[in-house]
Each structure stands twice: as structure tokens, then as C-alpha cells.
């Protein structure tokens, strides 16, 4: 039986949804608005809602530190770590999804448990390792760290997707003469493309937003956008407008990516939950 929803109820729900969305989006909106204010306007009390639409902050931010260098560092680190993670995760998830052993669940839980450890607990040893191996403030060093940090999530997501693929089809490929890598490349991966795509997107976003390690293990050369933002919060006190301009620049690319791939992301996050 179809549920009858009255117009009034619909209106109420729509209004509620807009209010919740606005509350969630407000910090981002406020950051964007602030980035177009002068520093005086930014700290004015009571706060000014409509900025004077100056782009001075953006110019100053670009002069003080090169946005595009940080931007490309972020791209390298997030895309690089995601691709490496996928290369490792696809075979691991394949093994656990299609030839599970009594210990598979434990291995999966153990991987996930590493995400529960507070990162600051291993900061000092990690820092020393990075210093001694010359990985400090390098893009490749950060790429390795972010690969390792996100690997459990990538494996988990792929594992869930692979479990949806009938094992018969992989067996058919084996019977058709496909050796291991051909089975993965020609059959498993093409069938799992939607899942792999949303895993990739989510992981790029996670890596892009990762702030703890990227700030602590870089100085200037390899600093991605997260470090770029934080550099505006310290030396000469807080400059809200410039900080906001830097933040807006930093989140803009990922916001656009997220917007464009909304469908994939939602499908990816709810996959398996609604079947």
C-alpha cells in the first residue's frame, strides 16, 4: 500500500531538510563569505553577513605562498596513495572474498583496528623513521604514509564489492584458460568497476583531507593544501579573512569533485547495505 503523504507534511519535511542542510553547510558558507571580507569586516561584532566582495585576500594568499605548488602536492599525494592502495587492495580483497579461510574475518577486523589507534601515539617513532630515511618533507614519503593509513578502508570496501560478484564467473574464467592475472584484469576488475570507482573517489577525498600526518611530516617542499591552510593560522596571529581565502581555495577542488561524483559516492557508501 502506497503511503499517503499530505501536502502539508511534505512542506514541513522539505523545510526541515533545507534547515538541516543549511546547518551542515553553514561553516563552509561562512568561510567562503569571510574570504571576500576585509580583515576588519571579518572580526566585526556583530558579524557582517554580506561581505564587501574584495578579492584582496586571494591575491595576498597567492603572493605569500604558491597555491598551485601546494595544490599539485595534494594531487600527487592523494591520487598516488589511492592508486598504490588499489594495486595492493585488489588482490588482497580478491583473496579474502573468494577464498576465505576461518581466519579471514579476524584479518579484516585486525586491519580495521589499526584505524582505531590514535595517530598521535605513533607520531614520534614515525617522525624519527621519516627523518632517518630522508622521507621527511617529501611527496613520496607522504604518499606511502597515506597509502598505509587508508589501505584498511580500501580493502574493506573492495572486499564488500567483490563479495557481490558470483564466484561462478571467476571459475568460468579459469575454465576458459585465464591464468591468475588475466582473471583479475579481464573479469574481476571490469565487473567491479563501479565499486572500484567509488572506492577510488572516497579514498582521494580522504587523502586530500588528511591533515595530521601531512602537517606534521612536511615543512615547505612537500606541503599539500592542508599545510597551506594551517600556515595562515600561526605566525602573525590570526587573519580570519586570509585564512578563509586559503581554506576556500583548498576545499574548492575536492568540493567540485565530490559534487560531480555524488551519485558514485552515495552508491559506493550504501552498497551492500540495501540489497
Amino acid at each position, binding site marked *: 500500500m502506497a503511503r499517503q503523504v499530505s501536502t502539508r507534511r511534505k512542506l514541513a519535511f522539505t523545510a526541515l531538510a533545507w534547515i538541516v542542510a543549511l546547518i551542515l553547510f553553514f561553516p563552509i558558507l561562512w568561510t567562503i563569505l569571510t574570504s571576500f571580507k576585509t580583515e576588519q569586516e571579518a572580526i566585526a561584532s556583530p558579524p557582517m553577513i554580506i561581505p564587501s566582495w574584495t578579492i584582496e585576500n586571494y591575491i595576498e594568499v597567492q603572493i605569500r605562498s604558491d597555491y598551485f605548488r601546494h595544490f599539485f602536492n595534494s594531487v600527487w599525494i592523494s591520487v598516488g596513495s589511492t592508486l598504490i592502495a588499489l594495486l595492493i587492495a585488489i588482490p588482497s580483497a580478491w583473496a579474502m572474498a573468494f577464498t576465505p579461510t576461518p581466519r579471514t574475518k579476524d584479518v579484516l577486523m585486525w586491519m580495521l583496528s589499526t584505524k582505531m589507534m590514535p595517530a598521535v601515539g605513533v607520531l614520534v617513532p614515525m617522525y624519527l623513521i621519516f627523518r632517518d630515511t630522508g622521507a621527511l618533507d617529501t611527496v613520496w614519503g607522504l604518499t606511502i604514509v597515506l597509502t598505509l593509513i587508508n589501505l584498511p578502508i580500501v580493502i574493506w570496501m573492495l572486499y564488500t564489492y567483490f563479495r557481490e560478484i*558470483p564466484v*561462478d*564467473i571467476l*571459475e*568460468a*574464467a*579459469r*575454465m*576458459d*584458460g*585465464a*591464468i591468475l592475472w*588475466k582473471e583479475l584484469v*579481464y*573479469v574481476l576488475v*571490469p*565487473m567491479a*568497476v563501479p565499486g572500484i570507482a567509488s572506492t577510488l573517489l572516497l579514498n582521494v577525498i580522504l587523502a586530500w583531507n588528511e591533515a595530521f600526518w601531512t602537517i606534521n611530516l612536511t615543512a615547505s617542499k612537500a606541503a599539500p593544501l592542508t599545510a597551506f591552510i594551517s600556515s595562515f593560522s600561526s605566525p602573525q596571529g590570526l587573519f580570519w579573512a586570509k585564512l578563509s581565502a586559503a581554506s576556500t581555495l583548498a576545499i574548492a577542488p575536492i568540493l567540485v569533485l565530490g559534487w560531480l561524483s555524488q551519485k558514485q559516492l552515495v552508491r559506493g557508501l550504501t552498497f551492500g547495505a540495501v540489497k
Partner: protein
Amino acid sequence: MGSITLEHVHKSFGGHPVIPDASLQIEDGEFVVFVGPSGCGKSTLLRLIAGLEDTTSGIIRLDGEDVTDQGPASRGLAMVFQSYALYPHMTVRQNIGFPLKMANTDKATAERKVADAARVLNLTDYLDRKPRELSGGQRQRVAIGRAIVRQPKAFLFDEPLSNLDAALRVNMRIEITELHQQLKTTMVYVTHDQVEAMTMADKIVVLNAGRIEQVGSPMELYRNPANKFVAGFIGSPRMNFLEGPAADKYRAATIGVRPEHMRISRESGEWAGRVGVAEHLGSDTFFHIHVDGAGMQTVRTEGEKDFAPGDPVWLSPDPSHIYRFDQSGLALR
């Protein structure tokens, strides 16, 4: 060539034996059917031959060569799965051509072979479609096409018809039999349907609880079942079994009479009973008779007979077709 030999093959899953000890010889070009109730290990046996499962112990030979430790890709066998297992992201053309691609066949040869297979299987018009755009029967044909293109040593069929509706099943049964007559390649076919086994096989292997109960031609198994299990499994409707005084008279623990060898009469006979359900098939009628002290027995009569439910009747066996079994169920000859 495609002879298959199993020597004392044993398989257990996590300590639980599924195939205790199976030895079997399949000759080149034979159509062999593994039949048995679900869970009897027939699919496992097929998967062991395919290489999709590893044997726990024992030897599997293809054309005399020990392939026990070889993976499925290198055994040169083709398999048709119950679920068809087509590659959903590939077209029919790519599906059928996949084994050739894996074997690095040159493009021109591959295209010719795919076209040939498609013609044989009436799939020419569907070559550029994806599997999801095909009907069940067409999908089954694609699966068969994928199996025949690379001329395997033997075909393995794992309950290939059980997802099709009854009419299509009969057609595909005939098509597969015809295919076997054309190709003359060894086929091993797994089914739980004894009608498929009887109609298609050169040789039937009856399995029960992982054990091979009997191996033989369909008529051999029908005429001379080695034990009560085979006698009950082969033949439709299934054989009637009578125990107690009825069997004592024939010096057996149990006697078996097929429904087609049971006579029904209003006047006289060996066992008295009452008519239960009648199933009218047009050409035949099956009567289920409640026999006093021996339970439900089935009689097959030709054409129409006018016994009504509740009518008192007499049953008597055709004396030349009484099967006798001892206490352990083995046939007495």
C-alpha cells in the same frame, strides 16, 4: 582425445569427507552422466575433474597424464555452469571468444571460430548483445558456445538445464545430445534429474553420499540395479518397495516392483488395497494404491482406466520383473 581416469579420489572439506573414495574410468567420446540426490557429491566430483577443487588424495588423469596438481586453466577442459556464468560486461561475441583470447589465438581465426559457433547455436543475430539482454535459453547457448570454441578435451556440464523451464529443458536436452553426436567429444554431465540421465547418457554414474553406487548404461541400471538405492533412483515413477510377509514369500528382505510391472485388477491379485490418488497423463495413468500392510504403491497403466478413489482393488507383480534385495539393500540375483 579425452579420456578421464579417477584413481581412489578422496575429498574432504574441513575434515568432513564428501567423496570418501571414488575410482572411475571415462572413455574418450563418452557421454557420462553423474546423477544422484542433492548433496551426494556429484558436483564436487565434477569440480575435482575440472580442477576447481583440489583433491585431498588420489589421482586424476586426463588421457593418461596425471593432472591432479594442475590448475583448471591448464587442463584443457570446458565447463558449462548452472548459472551460465557469462561475463556480464562482455558482448556475446566477446563471451564466446574469451577462451580463444586467453589462448592467444590470432584475431582472424578467433573471429571465424566465434562465427561458426554462433551459427551452430543460432546466436548469429545476438552477437553484439550483452548477456542481460538474452533469454535463459539463449544465455545457455552462449555458455555452450564459449565451451565449444576452443575444442576442449572434454565438456563438463554442471546441472546446465535446471534454470530453464520445462519445455526449453526438453529442447536443450536434445540439442546437447545432438552436439555430442556431432562433436564426438567426451562429455561429463551432472544432474539430479534421472530423466536427463536416462535420455542423454551412454553411461550413468549413480552417486549417493559421495559413494559411486553403480556405473552402467541407462538400460543396464534400469534392468539390473545393483542395490535398492539405484533401483529407487532410476525409473519414473520410482520403484515400489515391499517388505515383511510380501517379501518373505520371495525369500528377500525387500522386493521391488516398478509401477509399469504392477498389474491392477478389481477381481483378484496378490495384494489387496484401495485406490488413492489417480494422476492422468493422457497416454498413461498413475494410480496410487493404499495396500493393506505395505503402504502406498504406484501402478502405471496405459491409457485411461476408470478406477475411482476408494475403490477396492487387487495388485499383482509381473513375476519376471521382481527385484529382490537383502537386508543391506544389495540386489539378490
